[in-house]
């Protein structure tokens, strides 16, 4: 009986192609054998306590600050790094991390304003506050992304400072792109293109593992390429660290200009002493700075314009734009078959006109955001040019507080003893 019923319904369903909601095709059976329907399993999420996460983050950063500033011990930094690599990396599988939390926090300001759990905002803030007081101790040993790269940096070489400065601009571009992604509702780009999370999860897409693998292999020689040239959160930490109250220093006491530390830093974060005789007269430098100040509005305008010109390209990051382009092309008859997306679109209630209107709204957002992105990049570029053109007087080997990752490599290179009588 039920077979025939099934067949009839099958035929009916095929004819009508119906989407019957409340009506069921087959009656629910009433069992005579005393059979009871099983309960559906609804397992709760496996959550680790946020208190443990925050306590470990703060504790590890405090210990790192102590190891860097008081103990001056690279071995301690490495030990803490291993702890963090295993907890925040392999145990927590790379999430939660302050690099990604940046997006959640900025999402309140410029994105869709989704409420942020306290844990996330604490994760975003704590490393910045620590950087304001002790330098980038988060980068040194607590960040799992930094830790996995530091573990691979076995044969670091110094790259030319020019290359360092140029490549460092990509981090600003990445930060800008991440903000653009938030403003336009494209998504959380930093998480999407996180290269190392695949290793922490012990599995990932081919592209993700490939990107991570390439970065780690490069990182054998050019230490921590992601941290220096890409990390968007690193940009914020850099700004905070410049104002740090205490910061790691190459020498525990007075610099004796022995030059031994010159090659110690793989991150080019040790500023060489400026020569006693200035390479150019004061007036030439002042004139150059004047020109640069005058050029600022020009640079910003050009960069903003470039951003506006690039917005059609950038807007293709957004799925709505891609779908609208696809539907438009299909309606012109460019494609014979449908993609899953366009099939889903045709099945939905939306009309193409509505989709195009939606795409236009997204494009308008992209135009404004791309202009702002361009201006931000232009300002960053201009700021760096100004910084590089101003000659600072410093007679000693000093740490560049913005760039220094507090890794502690240089400590062992300094022959100067810590003074015993007065605590440093």
């Amino acid at each position, binding site marked *: 009986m*039920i*077979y025939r019923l*099934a*067949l009839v319904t*099958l035929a009916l*369903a095929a004819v009508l192609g119906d989407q*019957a*909601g*409340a*009506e*069921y*095709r*087959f*009656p*629910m*059976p009433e*069992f005579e*054998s005393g*059979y009871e*329907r*099983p309960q*559906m399993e*609804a*397992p*709760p*999420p*496996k959550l680790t306590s*946020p208190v443990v996460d925050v306590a470990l983050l703060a504790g590890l950063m405090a210990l790192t600050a102590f190891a860097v500033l008081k103990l001056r011990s690279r071995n301690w930094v490495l030990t803490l790094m291993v702890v963090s690599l295993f907890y925040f990396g392999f145990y927590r*599988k790379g*999430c939660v991390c302050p690099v*990604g939390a940046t*997006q959640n*926090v900025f999402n*309140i300001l410029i994105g869709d304003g989704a*409420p*942020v*759990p*306290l*844990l996330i*905002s*604490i994760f975003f*803030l704590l490393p*910045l*506050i620590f950087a*304001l*007081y002790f330098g980038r101790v988060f980068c040194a040993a607590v960040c799992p992304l930094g830790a996995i790269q530091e573990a691979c940096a076995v044969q670091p070489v110094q790259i030319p400072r020019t290359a360092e400065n140029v490549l460092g601009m990509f981090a600003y571009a990445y930060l800008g792109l991440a903000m653009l992604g938030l403003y336009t509702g494209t*998504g*959380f780009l930093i*998480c*999407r293109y996180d290269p190392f999370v695949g290793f922490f*999860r012990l*599995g*990932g897409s081919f592209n993700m593992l490939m990107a991570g693998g390439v970065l780690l292999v490069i990182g054998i020689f050019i230490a921590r390429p992601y941290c220096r040239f890409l990390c968007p959160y690193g940009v914020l930490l850099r700004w905070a660290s410049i*104002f740090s109250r205490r910061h790691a220093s190459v020498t525990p006491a007075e610099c004796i200009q022995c030059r031994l530390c010159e090659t110690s830093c793989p991150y080019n974060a040790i500023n060489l002493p400026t020569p006693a005789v200035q390479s150019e007269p004061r007036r030439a430098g002042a004139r150059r700075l004047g020109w640069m100040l005058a050029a600022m509005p020009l640079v910003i305008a050009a960069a903003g314009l470039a951003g506006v010109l690039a917005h059609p390209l950038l807007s293709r990051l957004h799925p709505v734009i891609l779908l609208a382009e696809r539907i438009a092309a299909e309606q012109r008859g460019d494609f014979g078959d449908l*993609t*899953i*997306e366009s099939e*889903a*679109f045709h*099945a939905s209630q939306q009309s193409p006109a509505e989709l195009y209107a939606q795409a236009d709204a997204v494009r308008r957002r992209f135009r404004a955001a791309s202009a702002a992105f361009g201006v931000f990049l232009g300002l960053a570029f201009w700021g760096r040019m100004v910084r590089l053109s101003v000659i600072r007087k410093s007679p000693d080997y000093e740490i560049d507080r913005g760039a220094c990752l507090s890794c502690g490599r240089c400590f062992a290179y300094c022959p100067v003893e810590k003074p015993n009588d007065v605590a440093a």
Partner: protein
Amino acid sequence: MDSRDKIDRREFIRAAAVLAAGGGAWMAARPDAEGMVWQIDPAKCIQCGRCATNCVLNPSAVKCVHTYEICGYCDLCSGYLQPGAKARDTGAENELCPVGALKRKFIEEPFYEYTVDEERCFGCAKCVKGCGQFGNGSLHLQIKRDLCVNCNECSIARNCPSDAIRRVPARRGYLFKQWVSGEESEG
């Protein structure tokens, strides 16, 4: 300006920055924002099969779940058997599930119970499609919370063509299909 003033000013800037950032974050953060989890809306799902391949986990955190209240317990189950299957038995050539994750058990004439072996299921949605096309639609996909790592941006949601995946508060139950109306509701 002597160095003393300079230090004081820096100290002030630092304290102000910490206070502003901390206060801002405190105001912005909401305790009730804790515990949002990703869930599939069964009413929107079109069984495209991307849940199997786009999750950051392998195998996917999406599994087939079975709302027994809706199930017709049919012998000729279009979620269990391939279209045009030669026999209604457990032969691999007849089964629709590519990994044999859907199990069937005889209950009483003519009813069979179907259960999902979660260890094997990888969320390909073949059975869901079959069940929805010709059956009651009691099989459907859902993100298992014990498996989901709760990414900031669900990688399946981003690739979902019908926008069926959204965040729901963890306090709210699973978005299971319910017997009452056939629409999704709290489970």
